[in-house]
């Protein structure tokens, strides 16, 4: 079960740079429930990595561990050469590793603008609000509205915008398309593509495998807390056994 299938020809795309995040054999727990088993992975500069797997495979836990919301009991995480696995989450965020959590966690009692201002507070060189509103014109229209009055799609835009305004080195996107209408998913996908074109490094967890594969340079597949596949989207598509066994039905 724990065998890592190395796909042949998993070479990097031309634009991909030096390793940015190096995860080595981390083991994470919720309470006493063992979620991640010796998970290793790497993310390079300007790379989009898709982390796939079924519900409960440990994808969200992996992102939370990277962001410092969960601390691994063993293993190391290096970010730009420095060990970060023991750092508190706000320090990790300040270093430029920014999580967009699955539940979005918009501050319902704060306006759209306040949500963005809060996110920008601890960023050294935040993007101007106008740049954010250029990416998400919908948010400009609703800038004075309380977070709790936004639709699901608007909340997801705001959640991503909160990350972008901090100009993170890496964005960790946890199920950004979940529960959204197709049109909004396409809109968000376009935003993501534009980010990728600018060289933004992204780690994306998504159940919507097809959407994730259109973005990713490289994929990892988790199953029951074990890393079971690493390779390019092409290599994954060419491995129907992996697709069916770990992702499909």
């Amino acid at each position, binding site marked *: 079960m724990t065998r890592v299938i190395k796909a042949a020809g998993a070479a990097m795309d031309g634009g991909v740079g030096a390793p940015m995040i190096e995860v080595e054999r981390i083991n994470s727990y919720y309470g006493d429930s063992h979620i991640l088993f010796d998970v290793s992975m790497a993310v390079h500069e300007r790379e989009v990595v898709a982390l796939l797997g079924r519900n409960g495979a440990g994808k969200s836990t992996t992102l939370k561990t990277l962001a410092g919301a969960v601390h691994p009991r063993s293993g190391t995480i290096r970010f730009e050469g420095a060990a970060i696995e023991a750092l*508190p*989450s*706000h320090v990790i965020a300040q270093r430029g590793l920014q999580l967009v959590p699955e539940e979005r966690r918009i501050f*319902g009692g704060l306006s759209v603008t306040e949500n963005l201002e*809060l996110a920008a*507070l601890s960023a050294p060189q935040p993007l101007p609000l106008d740049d954010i509103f250029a990416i998400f014109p919908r948010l400009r229209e609703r800038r004075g509205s309380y977070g709790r009055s936004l639709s699901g799609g608007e909340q997801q835009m705001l959640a991503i915008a909160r990350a972008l305004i901090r100009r993170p080195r890496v964005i960790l996107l946890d199920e950004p398309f979940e529960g959204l209408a197709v049109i909004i998913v396409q809109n968000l996908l376009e935003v993501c593509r534009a980010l990728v074109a600018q060289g933004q490094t992204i780690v994306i967890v998504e159940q919507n495998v097809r959407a994730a594969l259109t973005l990713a340079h490289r994929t990892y597949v988790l199953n029951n807390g074990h890393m079971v596949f690493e390779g390019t989207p092409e290599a994954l598509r060419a491995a129907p056994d992996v697709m069916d066994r770990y992702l499909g039905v």
Partner: protein
Amino acid sequence: MPTLPQFLSQAFNGIALGSLLALIASGLSIILGALGVLNFAHGAMFMLGAYVAFVALGAWGSFGAALALGALALLALGFALERGLIRFYYRRPPEDQILVTFGLGIMMVEAVRYIFGPLSQRVPLPGWGQGIVNFGFFLYPLYRVQVIGMVAVLLLAFYVLLYRTRIGLVVRAGIEDATMVQLLGTNVQRMFLVVFSLGAMAAGIAGVIYAPLSSVIPNMGEPFLVECFVVIVIGGLGSFPGAVVGGIVVGEILSLTTLFNPAYAQAAIYAVMTLVLIVRPRGLFGTLGRA
């Protein structure tokens, strides 16, 4: 039946008392909302502020010095307590947090009793606060009008701090979801420290302002603590507008009931609290968050 001047005079008393309650309760409520800690020592902090006024007014006769000293002393005390003790309690059950702050409150009261004695002592009115205002058809003590003015300014400052500053932004966000604030790069622990210190300071300032209205006695904070609980239950947990409106409501109920039958003044606020609990358990402005 009371006369109209009596009624107006009591209504003014209600605003004076209610605005003070609002100031104390907003500190208590913000601490509760952001940190999840119900500070049972809050009444004792109010009492400490009043004793600072007693000492400062006695020594220098300067109300400004008393206000500054009271604010600073309680800010420092809040700072020290959060760093030294309270922060170790964030992960413990709410009952433990109540117990430890209850114990701290006793220590404060007893320390004051030891130093200043158990008897009540008069605090002089500041020179500019002596006198009577003539509202035409009723007379009202000048200092009480000034109390209403000062507390209004302070509540406004509290409002600006919460709703117009970066610190306030972090605090309001932290009341909703401290973990997400942390994930967005802001050190929540530091915010907790700021909130606890500011909450203590608000109680201290209220104590300074209250002292000349009455006298000081070591256990004077206890009824205020309980009335603040009533304010929070009525206004809604962690809500600044709730604390302000709840404070005025409680102040008015206390004062106006006194006009008709003083014996039932206290009972009346508990009756209203009970009503709120039954009809709207989250309080007037509360959301169904914590607890």
